[in-house]
């Protein structure tokens, strides 16, 4: 495996939405990162559709038809349908296969009839569960994940993604307690170990079927922190702490790329700008057109250097303006159209900067993902690129530096809670040993005791 020890981009300014150093092209001719932005539509299956394979297949097909109809009705040149599979679809790989087949059929029908470019991104669920002792590397759940991926590949998916969950038990502990070391161990160490394991396998399967291995996300960890952090007035997780989680999350998500993921990386990976800066793979992001699913504080900024633009998730139901696959594809499609217009007219860097500056100082989490700062964090990561542990610390510290500088420049305001947790995290990171083995040994002991579900076996750490 090739670790990233230098940046694929020469400078932050080189990065912009619609352009990736290493674009990808699907079988059907849809390109990602090749000079235009693709909208993504993603709709959660209706309640009750989980009851049988038939109802799930029909649900998936219907989501695809609605999206296609609206796409041609408003004139979108291309779009990507992403389907995140629920547990039942992954636990029963034949469901995954048939759902994929049904959706691919619809997309190809519309592509044939109208010439619109389409692609299916299939995202099986990581159904391994430390709590239940279903081991990460051998259990039936693990087997089903891999078999589902195989099924998606065989049935015509263009891109495969997943949200792996390695290290989650420890990071959950860390996030809810504001414990920076648990964050580092859960995300930077355990998460990276598990991701390497998973993606080595996934890439093999994709390569066999000539399907694009998309990417992973640190959803299970940094997004958990972000969701707990919530809005400016919420009080569950410090926003500086969540920013640190995000920085470490980048060091983690990068592993999938190192194992051969080619992008687009998963939309919910808010760390993607950092990963793109390092690796040059195309990314999907979500922000102001994902308000249906959640509220974030960087709804514009996160569009700055995306290659696909997503709505994250929405109930499958009716709105006044149509069904949700229609309505939300129109939302992401129109924003992508704006970005593409700016590309066509050569104004894309201006729009990128406007997106970025709209949110840069709205919140520390936004601040560190502004593309210039994302680039800095990337540089910190590649400096220790060979060592997942040390690069995670480097990312975390660079996050702290960026925020501190902005505060000193009086551009970023922090609450006392945010300021305190920032300082205390910085102090603990600075005290950590350089040697990862040493840290792992201590952390293994500490969190083995504190976190019931955590099982070092899952990471071959004992």
């Amino acid at each position, binding site marked *: 495996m090739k670790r990233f020890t230098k940046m694929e981009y020469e400078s932050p300014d080189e990065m912009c939405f619609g352009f990736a150093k290493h674009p990808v092209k699907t079988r059907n001719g849809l390109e990602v990162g090749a000079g235009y932005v693709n909208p993504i539509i993603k709709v959660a299956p209706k309640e009750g559709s989980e009851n049988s394979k038939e109802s799930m297949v029909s649900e998936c097909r*219907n989501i695809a038809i609605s999206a296609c109809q609206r796409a041609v009705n408003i004139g979108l040149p291309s779009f990507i349908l992403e389907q995140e599979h629920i547990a039942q679809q992954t636990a029963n790989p034949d469901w995954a296969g048939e759902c994929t087949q049904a959706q691919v059929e619809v997309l190809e029908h519309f592509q044939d009839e*109208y010439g*619109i470019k389409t692609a299916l991104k299939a995202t099986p669920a990581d159904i391994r569960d430390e709590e239940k002792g279903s081991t990460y590397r051998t259990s039936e759940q693990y087997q089903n994940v891999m078999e589902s991926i195989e099924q998606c590949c065989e049935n015509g998916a263009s891109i495969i993604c997943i949200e792996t969950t390695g290290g989650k038990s420890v990071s959950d502990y860390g996030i809810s307690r504001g414990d920076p070391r648990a964050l580092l161990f859960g995300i930077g160490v355990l998460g990276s170990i598990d991701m390497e394991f998973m993606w080595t396998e996934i890439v093999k399967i994709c390569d066999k079927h000539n399907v694009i291995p998309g990417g992973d996300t640190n959803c299970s960890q940094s997004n958990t922190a972000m969701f707990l952090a919530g809005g400016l007035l919420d009080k569950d997780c410090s926003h500086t702490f969540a920013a640190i989680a995000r920085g470490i999350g980048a060091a983690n998500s990068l592993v999938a790329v190192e194992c051969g993921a080619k992008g687009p990386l998963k939309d919910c990976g808010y760390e993607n700008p950092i990963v793109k800066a390092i690796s040059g793979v195309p990314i999907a992001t979500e922000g102001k057109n994902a308000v249906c699913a959640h509220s974030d504080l960087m709804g514009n900024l996160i569009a700055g250097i995306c290659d696909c633009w997503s709505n994250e998730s929405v109930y499958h139901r*009716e709105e*006044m303006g149509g069904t949700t696959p229609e309505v939300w594809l129109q939302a992401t499609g129109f924003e992508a159209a704006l970005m593409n217009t700016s*590309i066509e*007219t050569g104004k894309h860097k201006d729009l990128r900067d406007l997106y970025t500056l709209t949110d840069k100082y709205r919140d520390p989490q936004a601040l560190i993902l502004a593309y210039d700062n994302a680039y800095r964090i990337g540089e910190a990561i590649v400096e220790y690129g060979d060592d997942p542990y040390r690069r995670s610390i480097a990312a975390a510290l660079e996050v702290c530096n960026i925020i501190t500088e902005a505060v000193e420049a009086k551009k970023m305001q922090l609450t006392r809670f945010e300021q305190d947790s920032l300082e205390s995290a910085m102090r603990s990171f600075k005290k950590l040993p350089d040697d990862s083995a040493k840290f792992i040994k201590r952390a293994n002991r500490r969190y083995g005791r504190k976190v019931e579900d955590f099982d070092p076996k899952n990471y071959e750490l004992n």
Partner: protein
Amino acid sequence: MSYKDLEEKMNQEKIAIRYNVVAEGAAMKAEDYPEVKEILPEEEPFRTISLEILYEDKINALKDVKKALDEGISPIEIINNGLMKGIDAVSTLYTKGVYFLPDLMLAGDAMMESVKECESVLGRKSDTKGTVVCFVAEGDPHDIGKNLILMFLRAGGYEAIDLGRDVPAAKVVEAVKEYDPIFMTGTALMTTTMTAFSKVVDALEQEGLEVPAIGCGGGAVRKDYVESMPMTVYGVEAYHTPKLADAILNDNKNWEDLRKEYSDVVGEFVSEYAS
């Protein structure tokens, strides 16, 4: 760089594609479509009359209908073999996407006037497939959807009773008593008028009245809400209405069947009925 310069730099195809223009085939005369050929009669004067409806020519249609009546041709035959064939062809072209709403409305106007002419000779209303009552929910002024429905029903051979807009439940009940319709349609465009449907259903139930189905539709109306009461079917497109009525008339379907088989009955994928 100026706006004009920016515009010149753009490749429109990268931004927006008018798939309808792209997909549009070569121009063709309405009467040359195979589906239309199958419908239009060969025999005169029916052919001419049906073509006049097809081409939305009210003045000549009226003239030729009058002439035919003068010549002693049965008004029933004129309606069935001429006028209805013409409007049938119009509906077919509309469904196919060749004709558009104004065609349908104007052809409908021509047909309705001509039918009236025939009826005046006949001395009574001509037979229709059946009666459908249409209303807009109480408190709601939005009536365009309802007006489309009227036209589609009439073009489909139904007697369509127009109760107008902002119609209280009591008036709907009266109409049911008076017309005993095979189908009813209600339209509401507002969240707060959609509730009128349940008032109508309650009022009918209280009087022990029943309608095979009440199609409830309109901009703000949600299927889940409509299906929270009996007797109703959520309606999506105005042109679905005659098909729903046909299913009731020909296949004895009721509201429960229609809820299950909506897509099949109207013969197309309907997003709202998805899964």
